[in-house]
C-alpha cells in the first residue's frame, strides 16, 4: 500500500511543479496511509454484518452505529457527553501533569529530595490504580472530584518517572559546560536542564494522556450519569450494542486527536532531535 501511494506520489510529482507537489503530497500520502487500516476494518465489519456471519444483535452494522450517534447528537446530548468526558480528562491531566512535573523536576535535580520522595512514590506506583477508588469516593464524593483525582493518579506516574530519569540521565559533561561558562542556577535550568529533558517530558505527557483516557473510562464505568463511559454502560443496560460501539469509536478518535494535539504542539521543541521522521522530512524538503 505504501509503495502504491509512493508511486502515485512520484507520478504526481511529474505533473505538478516540484515545489508544490513534493512536500504536500508526501505529507498527505503519509496521513492517508493511516486511514487505510480503519477503512479496511470497517469494510470487513460491514461484510460480516451484511452476510449475517455475526448476529446483528451482537455486532450491529456500521450504519446502525452511525444512526445511533446521529440520533444522539441531534438534540445535543452526544456533544455534552463528549464535553463532560473531555473536561474530566483535561482537569485530571492538567492536575496530574503539574504535580508530576514539579515532583519529577525536584527529585531529578536534587539527590536529597529524590531519596526523600522517590521510595514513597515508587511504593504508591505499585498500588493497582483501581484500589484508589473507594478511598477517593470516600474523600471526594461520588461526583466529579473523585473521578478527576483518579485520572490524575493515572496521569501522574509516567510523567513523573520519565522526567526524573530524564534529568538524571542528562550528560554530566553538559553540566560542566554550563559550569565553565559561569551559568548561574537558573540559567543552567533554562538552557541546559529544561530543553534537555523536553523529549522525555513529552514522552511522559503522551503516555500520561493515554492513561488519562484509560482512567476516565474506568471512572465513568464505575458510576456516572454523563460521559462517554456512561453511554457505554447505558448501552449495555438497554441492550444497544450500537451505542457501545459508537462510544468506543468516539473514545478512539478523540483520544487520538488529543494525542496529536499534544505531539504537534511539542514538535517545535523537538526539532533538534534526529529521528527517522525528521530525516525523511529533511530529505523531502531538500
Amino acid at each position, binding site marked *: 500500500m505504501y509503495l502504491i501511494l509512493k508511486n502515485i506520489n512520484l507520478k504526481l510529482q511529474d505533473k505538478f511543479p516540484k515545489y508544490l507537489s513534493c512536500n504536500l503530497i508526501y505529507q498527505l500520502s503519509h496521513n492517508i496511509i493511516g486511514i487505510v487500516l480503519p477503512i479496511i476494518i470497517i469494510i470487513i465489519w460491514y461484510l460480516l454484518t451484511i452476510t449475517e456471519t455475526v448476529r446483528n444483535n451482537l455486532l450491529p452494522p456500521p450504519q446502525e452505529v452511525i444512526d445511533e450517534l446521529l440520533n444522539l447528537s441531534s438534540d445535543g446530548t452526544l456533544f455534552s457527553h463528549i464535553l463532560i468526558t473531555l473536561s474530566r480528562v483535561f482537569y485530571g491531566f492538567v492536575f496530574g501533569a503539574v504535580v508530576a512535573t514539579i515532583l519529577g523536576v525536584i527529585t531529578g535535580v536534587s539527590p536529597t529530595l529524590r531519596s526523600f520522595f522517590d521510595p514513597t512514590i515508587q511504593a504508591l506506583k505499585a498500588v493497582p490504580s483501581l484500589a484508589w477508588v473507594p478511598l477517593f469516593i470516600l474523600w471526594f464524593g461520588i461526583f466529579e472530584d473523585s473521578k478527576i483525582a483518579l485520572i490524575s493518579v493515572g496521569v501522574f506516574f509516567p510523567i513523573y518517572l520519565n522526567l526524573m530519569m530524564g534529568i538524571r540521565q542528562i550528560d554530566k*559533561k*553538559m553540566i*560542566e*559546560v*554550563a*559550569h*565553565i*561558562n*559561569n*551559568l548561574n542556577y537558573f*540559567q543552567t535550568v533554562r*538552557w*541546559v536542564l529544561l*530543553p*534537555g529533558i*523536553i523529549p522525555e517530558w513529552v514522552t511522559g505527557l503522551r503516555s500520561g494522556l493515554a492513561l488519562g483516557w484509560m482512567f476516565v473510562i474506568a471512572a465513568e464505568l464505575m458510576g456516572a450519569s454523563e460521559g462517554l463511559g456512561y453511554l457505554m454502560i447505558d448501552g449495555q443496560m438497554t441492550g444497544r450494542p450500537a451505542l457501545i460501539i459508537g462510544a468506543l469509536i468516539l473514545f478512539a478518535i478523540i483520544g487520538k486527536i488529543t494525542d496529536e494535539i499534544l505531539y504537534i504542539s511539542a514538535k517545535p521543541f523537538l*526539532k*533538534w*532531535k*534526529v529521528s527517522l521522521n525528521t530525516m525523511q522530512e529533511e530529505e523531502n524538503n531538500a
Partner: protein
Amino acid sequence: MLKIHNVSKAFKNNDKSVNVLENINLFVEKQEILSLVGQSGCGKSTLLRIISGLEKASSGHVKLYDEIITKPSSSIAMVFQDPRLMPWLNVFDNIKLSILNDNKETQKFKINNTLKKVGLENAGDLWPRQLSGGMAQRVAIARALVQEPKVLLLDEPFSALDSFTKTNLHEHVKDLWSSLKITIVMVTHDINEATGMSDRILVLQKPVKNKISKNEIIKINQPRSSYKNDEYNELIKNCIFKTNNIQTAAFI
C-alpha cells in the same frame, strides 16, 4: 600572568589514593602559547581542569595575576576534547551560552563576529547534529573565544580531526591568538602541533613512587621553521625517555 604554584592532585579510586600531579610549578607569560605533552593518563587534562577552576587542587594553587582561581571565571575559557555542544541549541545559541549576561544586541554582534572568525558565518541556524566534526570543534572554539577570555585552555581540541582541517584550525587559532592577544595553554598528543604552535612545551611525567619526577620544559626558538620539528621531536622524546623506561614511541 598564570602562576601554577606547587599544584598536586590525588584522586581516590576505589579507596586507593592515586597521585596524578605532584608539585607542578609553572609560570605562563602573557600572550604565550604553552603546550602540555606527556603520556596518556599523566594528568594533562587534570592540570587544565585545575587551571580552569573546574577541579580543585589537593594542594597548591593557581593564580591568574594575583588572584587564586577557585571557580570558573569568564577570564578563562576552555575547549574540551569533544566539542560538547548542547544538542538542543543551534550553533548561535550554543555560542551564546558563554555570554548570556550581555544584552541581545551585543550578543548578536559578538557571535556573528566570532562565527566569521572561525569561518562559520552561515552556520548560526544549524543544529549540532547537522555539523561535521571540524565544524562542531570550531563552534566550540567560537564559544570559548566569544567571551574574550584572557586565557584560553585547549584540551586536545584538534585530535579528532583530519590533518587538513587540523592545519586549517591551527591557522585559525594562531590568527585569533595574534589578533586577540590571549594566552593559550594547550594539551596535545601531536609533536608537530606542539612545536609548530607553541613558545614552550611542558613535558609532564607520571609521578612515580619515592621518586621526584622532573617535568621538563622545552623552549621553541622563534620564528619557527618546519625543518626544526625533527630536532624538537628528538628532544621531547629524550625528555620522556630519560625519566621513564616505558616504550615511548606510541604515546605521542
